[in-house]
């Protein structure tokens, strides 16, 4: 376990791949995939650092993030326990989303995960 940190080079590379990420559907998939990959994921102050990193990676603001979460909740993919812990209703759905992302954006995903793993 380590504190959330993203190196400068990682941030630059990330932007190169993800600046073009405008499609709402893709962002939804990314968000879902991150909730799956980075548990525990909290909506309250406990998840602030992690969610700020997510917003930075997806180049979205808090309003857009709220819209993504609301959509995922509305479509029955996500639930929030007592306003805190974010839980995926189906881990299998998230796996499919992750597979798709990897097929469509393999380089971007590799860069992101390398950054998370620090390798």
């Amino acid at each position, binding site marked *: 376990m*380590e504190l959330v940190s993203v190196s400068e080079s990682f941030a630059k590379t990330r932007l190169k791949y993800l600046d073009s990420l405008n499609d709402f559907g893709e962002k939804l998939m990314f968000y879902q995939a991150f909730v799956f*990959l980075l*548990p525990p994921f909290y909506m309250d102050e406990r998840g602030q650092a992690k969610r700020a990193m997510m917003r930075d990676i997806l180049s979205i603001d808090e309003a857009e993030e709220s819209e993504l979460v609301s959509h995922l909740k509305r479509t029955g993919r996500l639930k929030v*326990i007592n306003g805190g812990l974010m839980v995926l209703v189906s881990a299998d759905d998230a*796996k499919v989303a992750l597979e798709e992302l*990897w097929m469509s954006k393999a380089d971007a995903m590799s860069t992101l995960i390398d950054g*998370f*793993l620090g*390798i």
Partner: protein
Amino acid sequence: MINKKIILSKIAALKGEEACRYVSRAIKNIGARINCAGDLDQAVDLLELLAVVAYKAPEKALEATASVLDDNSLINTQGRRSGQDLFRTSHDTLINKAFDVLLALRYLKPEEVMKSVLLYSRAQSESLRLGAERVATEMAKYDYGILTKTNLGYQPQRFILDKLLNIPQNDRIGFASLIKVVSKEILATSIIGHETTGPNTLTMYSSSVAPTESLRGIRMDALGLVADMCISSQKDAEKIGYLNVLRESIKEPMHGNYGENLLLMLEEELKWLLGVYRRVVFDDKGALAVGLGVVASMDEHLYWLSRTRHACGALLGRLREDIAANPVYALLDCYVGGGDEIAYGFGSDELMSRRGVRNDALIESVSSENSGVWASRFEMVATARDVVDDWKFTVFRDLLRNFAAKKPELAFKMLADSMKNGGSLRFFSSSILLGLRMSSNLDLWDRLVNQVEQDDMAEMRPLVADSLVRNPDGQELIRFRKEEADWLCAVKYEGDLRLEYSVLRAMLINSLDDPGRLTSAVVKLLKQSKFNQYHLPSLEASLMNKWLDLSSFAPKDLRGLKKVLVSVPSFDWHAQGIVLAIGKQDPSSMLEILLGRIKMGRGRKRFSLEDRYEPIPHHFHDGLAKALSAMPELVSRLIPWFEKAGERWSPMLADMGRLLGNVKTMASEVMDVLISTGQEKGLWQVLYMLKFQHNEPDLEVFIKIVGLTDNKKIWAECMAALSSAGGVYGEDGLARIFKARAEALKPFLGSENSRVKTFAEEAIKNLLDHAERERVEAEEERELRRIEFEG
């Protein structure tokens, strides 16, 4: 917080090509990063990550691991990767993590893993050897999951055994430890496994091996390997180690159902094993080929087998008869316990009577003509102490004691010769010396002890002290002489725990014969010893047995004893027992010692492992608590202590809190006095002390405190105390406790004291908030467990 292992394991579980390619590349990158890791911690983290996904690219994972294990300069050069004080520990951790990677690959790359195991099982570094053995053990284990969910069957066991069998005969001794641990696993008959079958469910499985042809072949080869090692081994202790593996191998499964087939297989193996045992014990001419300890160990096993394995009864009985017929072993069998106890029952009348008759006859038969023969026999039995458990020599010790009592001159000569020649019988000198004392052959005792002192035989001194028993077996009291007291008081301990123990015990047992002198010597020993904590049980026992009379202590010695009780690091059950005994004569001494400990605790390191000092223990002696409660002047003696103590938190106040928490009546009286002053100093002292009382908070006390002050800091402290709890049970345990406390506070909402009323309102709100938060956390914990289970 990001958990790298979770991220990587989740990606590794994906089936897509791109994800697989990524994981493979990640493993390579991790390997490269390990090689240039800045410190051990980083390398350990990377190896942990590698172990999670090694199965996805085994070759690359092996390469990365080899670079850690093969890097001799890394392993032997301190500080190359870390300048920490705990370098060695961290380095062992690194090695263990590398072996974790090998462990993850044991079924995927058995050839390569086994190559590393064989290489490192002979390494100089213990951590490398143990790591290699750990991997081999896991590989040889009958794993429930592997047996039920793969088609591997017994292949892993066959594979690893073949590797061991391929080691050239002459080299096998170098792999002795590996062969032992692996064979033990291969020859097991039980299979145990577990599986997480739900977010909150762990299912345990137990079963037994199936006696298929392939398993029979594996087992016979493994038995053959161990038997060969046992026969060719040169040392008795090693032979016993191999015999223990063989002994375990023919045990029936501990769990699960098994049928006749398995029992038949074990019977066949036992028949074969009996032949091996014969070859181990006897040479070609039928003489004993091994030390008595090995024979004793085997005979004990054979006895128990004869009770359960009737199918091999005749064969087994014949081997036992042949062993028993050996005159040298017969001696050991008779006089080193084991056989007799088993046959006639431990401590039974028949056993004691038979033994008495036999001993008397034997002692009678020893004469000056044949004493040389008997001396060498006794020496032979005594030599077995290297491999036979000490408690089994009780019978032999009794024999020697009676022999010395009845034939003192012969016993004296045997022991003197053994001392002179460095024989093993000298390690049993306490029995012979005691026998000489029992028969009043005190001049012989003096001569032997003088010899010990003259030749400065340090290892003999504890045995001399052990011979100074007062009334063995409840027989007539043995006279304790001035010469013996002189010797005890003159012994130089020099930090020898064993010697201190024996000397102290002898002094305590005999203290009534020379009270003034010996009690002084006891206190002197306790004051000087760095092991005084270990000696307190003996002191307590002697008080309980009335060997020691505290009223005979000179005032100076009693003061010394109290100082010892203040200085011992742990105020354990025995120390408290002694304080209680002192308190029966002088109740004020109890408080004096306890306050002394609290004062001493002020300057000591509580959390240092080397220099730990616990002034007041968590487990308090009931008798001591009662005795303290019964002291009428207790509160009046304690109040001045609080007047001198400050209002800020201090270790002394914490220890006083712990003491009062154990003596409840005292606590409430003292606290009432402190609260009734209405001064904030007293209120703070009460609050700090309450922190160290592991009881349910007393609401009345908090209400009394807040009713006297508007100080918000004091209110906050009361609130914090109400919101903390010690042990609870169940996921919602804390929530239940907080709700119950809120409920208990409700009557105070109607209090006429406005402070109390306000506090009750705030505390109830706080507690209910806490309860709700605890409920939410419990729900989140359940979800997190579900996430972890579903992956």
